[in-house]
C-alpha cells in the first residue's frame, strides 16, 4: 500500500513511476493499492494511469 496523503502528483513522470512500481510488485505476485491522493493528484493520476508507455 502506498499512502500519498502527504504527497502531491504533479506530472506524467510521476504517474509513470507509480505505474512501474505497481508493475514490478505485480510481477512478484504482490498487489499495490494507492491511498490518500488529494483531488488534484487523483484527477491527474486517473487521467494518465495505464496509458503511458514504459521507457
Amino acid at each position: 500500500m502506498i499512502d500519498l496523503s502527504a504527497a502531491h502528483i504533479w506530472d506524467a513522470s510521476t504517474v509513470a513511476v507509480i505505474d512501474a512500481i505497481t508493475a514490478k510488485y505485480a510481477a512478484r505476485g504482490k498487489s499495490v493499492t494507492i491511498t490518500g491522493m488529494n483531488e488534484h493528484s487523483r484527477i491527474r493520476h486517473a487521467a494518465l494511469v495505464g496509458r503511458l508507455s514504459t521507457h
Partner: protein
Amino acid sequence: MSHPGLRTFRSALLRLSPRALRTEVLAGIVVALALIPEAIAFSLIAGVDPRVGLFASFTMAVTISLTVGRPAMISAATGAIALVVAPLARSHGLDHLIAAVILGGVFQIGLAAAGVARLMRFLPRSVMVGFVNALAILIFGSQLPHLVDVPWAAYPLVVAGLAVIVGFPRLTRGGPGAAGGDHGPDRVHRGRGGRGADGGRPGGAARQPARDRPARGAAVAVMIMVAVGTFDWHSLRTPGRMPRSETTVMLSTVAVTVATHSLAIGVGVGVLVAMVLFACRVAHLVDVTGEPGPDGTSKVYRVSGQLFFASSNDLVLRSTTTATRTRS
C-alpha cells in the same frame, strides 16, 4: 487645452500651495542641473554628440512630466542604455540610433499592452541582482580602455572628477552628487530598463579626439560612479545567509552576462539555472517511510512531498531499497 496630460498638469499646478510650488520648482531645477553632467557623460559613452544626450534628457523630462509623472520619479538618460546602444551608434550612426530607440519604445508599448509584465513573476530576485551587478561590471569595464595605456594627464582628470562627484555634495551639505550619489531603487529601476532593448553587445565607446580629453576624463569619473552606484553591494554581504542556490543563480547571471556581453543571454541563463535549482530543492523534500501494514502481511509506504519529474524517480529507489532491507 484638451490634451489630458496638459489638463492634469494644470490642475496639479492649481492645487499646489505657493510653498509646495516653490519646493517643486526648486526640486525640478536641482534635478535638471544634476542631469546635465549625466547626459553629457552618457552621450560620450554612447558615442554621440553631447547635445544629443542633453536634448534627449530634456525631451524625456518634459514628456514624462505631462504624461505619466509620479512624485520623486526622475526619467532621464541612463548609463545602462548608453552602454547597450553604443555599438549601434558606432556601427550605424545617429540616424539609426534614433530609429532604434523609437522602435524600442514601440516594442515596449506593445509588450506592455500584451501584458508581458506578468512574466516578471518568473524572474527571481537573484537574477535581478545578478543583472544589476553584471551591468555595473560592464559599465566599469567599458571605462577601462580610457584608463589603460592613455596619456598620464588622463589620470588626474579622472581623479579630480571623482573627487568632485564624491566630495562636492558633502561640502554643500547633503544632496546627492551630480550622478554618483544616484544610488538606490531609482538607479536600479532605470538599469532594468536596459533589458528591453538589449541583445546588443555593450562595449567601450569609440575613443574621442584629443581635444575632448577633459570631457572624457569627467565622463569616465561619472561612469565609474554610476558603476559603483549600480552595483548591489549588499548582495556581497548576504551570501552566508542566502541559500547557496540563490548565490549560484546570482553569480551565474553575472558570469554569463559579462562573458557574452549580452544582458539578454545572461538573464535567460540565470532564469534557467534558477528553475533547475528550485526543482532540485523541492525534489529533495520528498521522503518515503515504510512500515508493516495493519494486517501484518502487507506493507505501507508513506510518501510525502512534491512528486514530479525531478523527484519521482527517487520513489522507485527508496521504496525498493526499503523493500529489500525489510526482506533481508
